[in-house]
């Protein structure tokens, strides 16, 4: 094997030498950024629908919000002004008034950002027909424009973190009312925001092109042009990066990939939060999963420690609960069922399936998902559970699981790091697939509605956390979802590229691109 590796390495070196690509090329005064994404194509660039990692990454470059996480961080304590230059709230935190910056310009010449745009955007975010995150904004009673640069938000009840809902994340993004109304459905592939980079064009399946938004209110971006290439195959992406065809590339959560990249001259690695929690959601409304013993059997058959060991400790750890471990309100011991094959078999037999069961599961072809799914398939097989994987392209998978077409959904996600968001989106009955305000409650879980709702309006912080922890306990006990692993984001870049901040976290799941990003001479 070593011999083979040497031959291959030698051949690669000769090839690179012949093509003048033996090392990463110098990027003196480079103003074009070329990014390699682990994605096959664009899904939806309307930020209120963008749910794939790739789409989320892009909308964070295009749009801004009232407030934002400090670049490089996912800590709510770092939330700082973005479009809003200041804000104040009444004593009961039910009425919030935001003062907007003046002179902030939309991309593509759509004029100045005004309070009307903010009102339109937040009303859209709260509308289930025009937003995938409407549930998060259900507490908003009204949004009004006091004047062109003042917005008043009135809440029906207190929420855990209103500022969290108004950040540069999911439904918090502000869109141009005029552009949205003019472009209609075309807005999803021809967006207008006020962020540092404006959308230029799409080459389907090939790339998305951006240019700097020269009137960006924080200053003209140092990067002038961005090409976001779809390089879904990890090996192709790595080769493109090594050959200097791209400057940044989505990495692989694989130990060998990390070792190889660390040894690549001129390459820097970014491993950052949020870690995405992978949960195996089980649809409780479909047979035979309406029998809790079947769900428990699946939970006992899954071995998260093996998957974490496979991926490597640099990126992955065993999940602690049904919400990410960085969330405020985590219950570190919610009573997760231990890995126990014998118990799984016994439960299946008790449920009337002594010979096991076969489950059809629609699976994403994205490599990270495909790998996890095949390991899960092998683990479940040991308990007599045959997982009939039906792989589809990642964007199609996102659509199909939102139509209840797969009784098991292996879903990795990170959300605003307060328990309410994750619990609401994944485990509250209002978010269940098929409901008017459906989000990502694939299991049709409803056992913790009372606790989730009570926590949302609880003013005593301690009691609020207790309610969230109780909710997790109930969800785990009912096996709505089986927590598997938490995996951090990993990207590699040309070491000459400076993000302009220390990249420790990015809510968009990809590197945040700001006006500060530049190539060092």
């Amino acid at each position, binding site marked *: 094997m070593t011999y*083979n590796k040497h031959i291959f390495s030698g051949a690669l070196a000769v090839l690179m030498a012949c093509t003048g690509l033996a090392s990463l090329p110098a990027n003196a005064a480079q103003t074009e950024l070329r990014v390699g994404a682990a994605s096959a194509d664009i899904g939806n660039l309307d930020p209120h629908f963008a749910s794939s990692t790739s789409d989320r990454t892009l909308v964070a470059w295009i749009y801004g919000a009232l407030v934002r996480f400090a670049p490089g961080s996912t800590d709510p304590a770092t939330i700082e002004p973005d479009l809003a230059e200041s804000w104040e709230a009444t004593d009961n935190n039910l009425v919030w008034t935001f003062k907007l910056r003046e002179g902030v310009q939309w991309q593509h010449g759509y004029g100045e950002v005004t309070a009307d745009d903010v009102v339109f955007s937040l009303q859209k975010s709260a509308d289930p027909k025009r937003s995938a995150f409407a549930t998060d904004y259900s507490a908003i009673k009204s949004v009004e424009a006091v004047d062109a640069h003042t917005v008043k938000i009135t809440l029906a009840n207190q929420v855990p973190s209103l500022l969290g809902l108004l950040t540069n994340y999911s439904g918090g993004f502000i869109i141009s009312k005029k552009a949205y109304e003019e472009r209609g459905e075309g807005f999803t592939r021809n967006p207008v925001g006020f962020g540092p980079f404006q959308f230029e064009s799409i080459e389907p399946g090939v790339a998305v092109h951006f240019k700097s938004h020269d009137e960006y209110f924080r200053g003209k971006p140092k990067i002038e042009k961005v090409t976001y290439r779809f390089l879904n195959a990890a090996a192709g992406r790595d080769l493109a990066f090594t050959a200097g065809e791209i400057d940044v590339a989505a990495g692989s959560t694989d130990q060998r*990939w990390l070792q*190889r990249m660390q040894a690549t001259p001129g390459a820097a690695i970014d491993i950052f939060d949020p870690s995405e929690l992978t949960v195996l959601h089980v649809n409780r409304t479909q047979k035979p999963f309406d029998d809790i013993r079947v769900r428990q059997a699946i939970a006992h058959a899954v071995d998260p420690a093996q998957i974490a060991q496979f991926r490597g400790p640099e990126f992955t750890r065993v999940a602690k609960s049904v919400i990410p471990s960085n969330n405020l309100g985590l219950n570190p011991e919610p009573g997760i069922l231990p890995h126990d094959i014998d118990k799984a078999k016994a439960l299946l037999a008790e449920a009337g399936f002594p010979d096991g069961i076969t489950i059809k599961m629609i699976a994403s072809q994205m490599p990270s998902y*495909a790998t996890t799914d*095949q390991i899960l398939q092998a683990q479940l097989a040991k308990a007599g559970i045959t997982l009939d*994987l039906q*792989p589809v392209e990642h964007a199609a998978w996102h659509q199909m699981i939102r139509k209840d077409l797969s009784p098991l959904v292996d879903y990795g996600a990170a959300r605003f790091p307060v328990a309410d968001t994750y619990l609401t989106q994944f485990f509250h009955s209002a978010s269940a697939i098929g409901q008017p305000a459906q989000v990502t409650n694939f299991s049709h879980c409803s056992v913790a509605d009372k606790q989730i709702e009570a926590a949302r309006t609880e003013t005593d912080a301690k009691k609020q956390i207790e309610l969230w922890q109780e909710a997790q306990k109930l969800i785990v006990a009912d096996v709505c979802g089986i927590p598997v692993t938490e995996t951090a984001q990993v990207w590699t870049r040309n070491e000459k590229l400076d993000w302009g901040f220390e990249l420790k976290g990015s809510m968009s799941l990809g590197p945040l691109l700001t006006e500060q990003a530049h190539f060092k001479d």
Partner: protein
Amino acid sequence: MTSLSTLPTPTAGRPQPRWALLKRLNFSTWLGMVIVTVLVLCAIFAPLITSYNPNDQNIILYLSPPSAENLLGTDQFGRDVLSRLLYGARYSLTIGFLAIVVALIIGSLIGMIAGYVGNRTDIILMQIMDVVLAFPSLILGLALVALMGATLTNIVIAIAFTAIPAFARIARAGVITQRDREYVQACHAMGFSDTRILLRHILPAILPEIMVMASLWMATAVRTEASLAFIGLGLAPPTPTWGGMVREGFDNILSSFHLALYPSFAILLLVLALNLIGDGLRDAIDPRLKDAS
């Protein structure tokens, strides 16, 4: 009025079976046959050659190099690569063979009917075949599998569908050259049914050409199956298919290039062998081609 005694017999003018020409097979053809036979035997006796289950994961040993325990190493899930190759041969050969059998039967029937009946039937049937033929086989197969789902049956149907026009064309051409021969006229005079004339008398005469086409198209079928699996439209995981192994190996090509190399070589070997057989049979059956070469 012609007396019965003066009519030609049903065998008069009928081409003699050309299987004798197989004696003229060249070395390459025999080499192809040996390779295919070896691969078929490997597929049949896979459980005797390797003790590993091709789907058993051993995550601790993932991406291991070749060793005494795992002669071709392990893949990204720690599965034995040799066992996956051997079991994968079953699927490649089965899909290739079944798809061609289906295409041969349906295509030949269509072609024979078109050639024998002629007129409007011929025009309509062959124009339909031309439409199907206008699509590249991979694109057509891809569309059908995407539409129907990637099961063994559907993949066989999809690949067979792409190959039907080729068999229809060659069967039609064969029937047209045979239908006015004396032995066919004799069959008519004897009052044989059209079905009997086609299946019992004309088919044996054109079968060698059809078989040559079958061997050449089986190589195409194997390639199409591997291509579908490579683009993610093959049999669902963890089923070992050669195309799927290339796809999975591609993700690790920079650290373990052999994972993609072994199944690629297996595909190459099988397709090459089938092409050698097809070319050899064609040369032996059609002396003009041999003379030309």
